[in-house]
């Protein structure tokens, strides 16, 4: 089967093979363990399927039945009914009826219900069974049912429903063999029995509920005792004083670990990129190509991969918070504050994550059901001071504010607060105009606490990293090449050869008597290279527009290259000032920018970076999560405008004051 990795739509294989492939849909209410079962069945053989016109992504994978047979499994969103009122229900309904473009009608359905909450979940059985597809009713969390002293006569239930029933614990892996047996039976084309119980009128919820309760009692269902541990933990985590205290501690712990644990890993990747880049360069004979591959592609990719440890830790913590059930409690505690800004509690963790990187933060907004709240959160996430802004902040602050003084800390803190305030004000603006919600009610389900399984966390990490690396990576790769093209083209062979020659000379004899002159020569050469490149031309061209902000053409080049990724500016400035390979801690570089920036210009540069949208990866992810170009374009325009305006003001104010 040609696995089409680039296809956005789950496409049909050619007709001759279609007959052998069967499609199974997994349906169920939220929190019934659909994802866990999906992961059990497909393992790593899964990918994201994007249905046309639908913003929420779904997963599709292959489950192995035996040595020869496989079925396609489609994971559908959690729904309580098939009323096409929300997008989730519409999509589920369309897929099950075969009305989803690009996906044939499923051959079988796995209806997964939480056996500890059966009366509520059985309601979904009515509309699903009435569709007439071969269905296996899976009573999940059977281990919890048993442990809590509950029980059910599954054979009786099967007779009442006219469909096979299986008691399963997807988390523990119990009973999954029965699921596979059912699927194997389906591929042979099993027939359905006639149900004993009449299916009720679907639209009427109370009647459906009465039907479900009746069904349960016929099958001798009794619910388990409520989980004690959840009550006990909640009396601490939702305690008026202890609750917020734990909340703050969790937030601090997540942050501290992300920044301090990730640091050594990031430095390691940096070193590796530089070292390996050198050796790759040795292998390439052609100068232009070598420059492109090492400086453009390899270093570009390295700059994205460098952030991967932070991203992974973030995904890991969000995963733990979500799977354990604590996330709902955190959202509860944060809700009051968030609603003052026009948002809701579920926006809290995504916005917090945005302090490390907006990309995983925006991906984490999937838990927000209200579409408008979700989009509002996505749009303001990039205002949070992400770690890519830190290099330029550190460079400018260190260059303009005396070392080791309190003012440095205040300046950095001030920038963090600035981002935060910008986010809040934008949220209020959005929610009172464009994204005003029709006062729809807020409701948040508090799942019972569970130990997150290593398996589910690992799969989630792999899945999220794949998405991050693919989306962000391809964008940054393209950007790396683009930036290279801007800075190194028109390519001058003589300059390039001389640069390499001088570099080799310095490397061979760094302490030689004429080393300083060699360094100076190299420096001048690098500056001249940039000045005569496309980027230099563009920098000169836009200089009139950015002069009111206190910037000259050199800063202009930096703004241009950092358009796709903020941290690039430090490297670009390094190159412009002939100090290639330096970073934000280099005193020489700090001194150099002092020659071109006034305090006003420095303030403007900081403010510009606080507000501007300079991250192609973010734009790519926003496009994906909002399903179109409208929102990312609006976001880009708004942030660019805000950046220009406030940088201009900053320049004016600081210049007048200094």
């Amino acid at each position, binding site marked *: 089967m040609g696995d089409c990795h680039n296809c956005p739509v789950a496409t049909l294989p050619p007709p001759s093979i279609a007959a052998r492939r069967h499609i199974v849909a997994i349906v169920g209410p939220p929190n019934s363990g659909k994802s866990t079962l999906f992961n059990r069945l497909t393992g790593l053989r899964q990918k994201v399927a994007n249905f046309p016109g639908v913003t929420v992504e779904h997963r599709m994978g292959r489950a192995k039945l035996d040595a020869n047979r496989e079925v396609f499994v489609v994971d559908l969103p959690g729904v*309580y*009914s098939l*009323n096409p*009122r929300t997008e989730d229900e519409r999509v589920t309904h369309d897929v099950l009826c075969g009305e989803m473009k690009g996906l044939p009608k499923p051959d079988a359905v796995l209806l997964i219900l939480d056996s*500890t*909450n059966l*009366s*509520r979940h059985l*309601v979904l059985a009515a509309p699903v069974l009435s569709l007439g597809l071969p269905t296996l009713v899976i009573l999940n969390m059977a281990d919890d049912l048993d442990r809590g002293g509950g029980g059910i006569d599954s054979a009786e239930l099967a007779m009442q429903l006219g469909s096979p029933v299986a008691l399963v614990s997807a988390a523990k892996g119990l009973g999954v063999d029965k699921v596979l047996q059912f699927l194997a039976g389906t591929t042979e084309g099993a027939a359905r029995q006639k149900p004993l119980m009449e299916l009720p009128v679907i639209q009427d*919820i*109370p009647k459906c*509920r009465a039907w479900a309760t009746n069904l349960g009692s016929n099958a001798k269902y009794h*619910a388990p005792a*409520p989980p004690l541990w*959840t009550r006990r933990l*909640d*009396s601490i985590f*939702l*305690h*008026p004083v202890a*609750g*917020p205290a734990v909340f703050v501690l969790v937030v601090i712990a997540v942050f501290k670990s992300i920044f301090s644990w990730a640091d050594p890993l990031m430095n390691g990747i940096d070193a590796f990129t530089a070292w390996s880049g050198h050796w790759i360069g040795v292998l390439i004979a052609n100068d232009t190509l070598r420059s492109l591959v090492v400086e453009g592609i390899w270093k570009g990719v390295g700059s994205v991969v460098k952030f991967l440890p932070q991203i992974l830790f973030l995904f890991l913590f969000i995963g733990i918070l979500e799977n354990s059930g604590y996330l*709902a409690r955190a959202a*509860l*505690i944060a*809700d*009051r504050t968030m*609603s003052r800004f026009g948002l809701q*509690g579920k926006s809290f963790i995504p916005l917090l994550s945005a302090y490390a990187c907006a990309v995983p933060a925006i991906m984490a907004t999937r838990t927000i059901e209200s579409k408008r709240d979700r989009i509002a959160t996505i749009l303001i996430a990039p205002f949070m001071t992400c770690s890519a802004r830190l290099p330029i902040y550190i460079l400018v602050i260190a260059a303009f504010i005396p070392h080791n003084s309190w003012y440095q800390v205040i300046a950095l803190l001030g920038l963090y607060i600035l981002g935060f305030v910008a986010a809040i004000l934008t949220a209020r603006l959005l929610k009172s105009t464009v994204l005003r919600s029709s006062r*729809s*009610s*807020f*409701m*948040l*389900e*508090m799942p019972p606490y569970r130990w997150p399984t290593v398996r589910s966390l690992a799969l989630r990490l792999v899945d999220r990293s794949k998405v991050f690396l693919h989306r962000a990576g391809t964008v940054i790769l393209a950007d790396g090449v683009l930036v290279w093209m801007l800075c190194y083209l028109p390519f001058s062979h003589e300059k390039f050869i001389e640069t390499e020659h001088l570099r080799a000379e310095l490397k061979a004899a760094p302490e030689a008597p004429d080393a300083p002159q060699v360094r100076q020569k190299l420096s001048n050469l690098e500056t001249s290279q940039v000045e005569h490149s496309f980027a230099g031309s563009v920098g000169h061209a836009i200089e009139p527009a950015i002069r009111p902000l206190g910037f000259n053409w050199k800063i202009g080049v930096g703004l241009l290259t950092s358009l796709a990724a903020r941290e690039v500016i430090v490297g670009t400035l390094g190159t412009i000032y002939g100090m290639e390979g330096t970073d934000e801690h280099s005193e020489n570089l700090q001194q150099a920018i002092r020659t071109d920036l006034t305090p006003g210009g420095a303030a403007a540069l900081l403010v510009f970076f606080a507000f501007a949208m300079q991250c192609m990866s973010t734009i790519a992810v926003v496009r994906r999560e909002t399903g179109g170009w409208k929102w990312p374009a609006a976001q880009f325009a708004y942030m660019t405008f805000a950046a220009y305006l406030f940088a201009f003001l900053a320049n004016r104010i600081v210049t007048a004051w200094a």
Partner: protein
Amino acid sequence: MKKRAAANATARNLTQLKRGESAILDRLDLPEDDARRLMELGFLPGHAITPGHSAPGGDPRVFRVDGSEIALRRETAQRLILR
């Protein structure tokens, strides 16, 4: 006496229940879509609801209904009328 007259005149809503105190839901004074979602979650007329823990300040609050715990904001809980 005044208290009883007042209680008879206006039906109780969910926010007036004390923590741990149960009552039966009579109706949901909400737009249809919201009412459906709440009913799907278990807030059905005739079912018992018990308020539980809350965020600091009392809003939103967790309500135990039908074997699960759902948090609602005050403005929503006010529209759930008790028998």
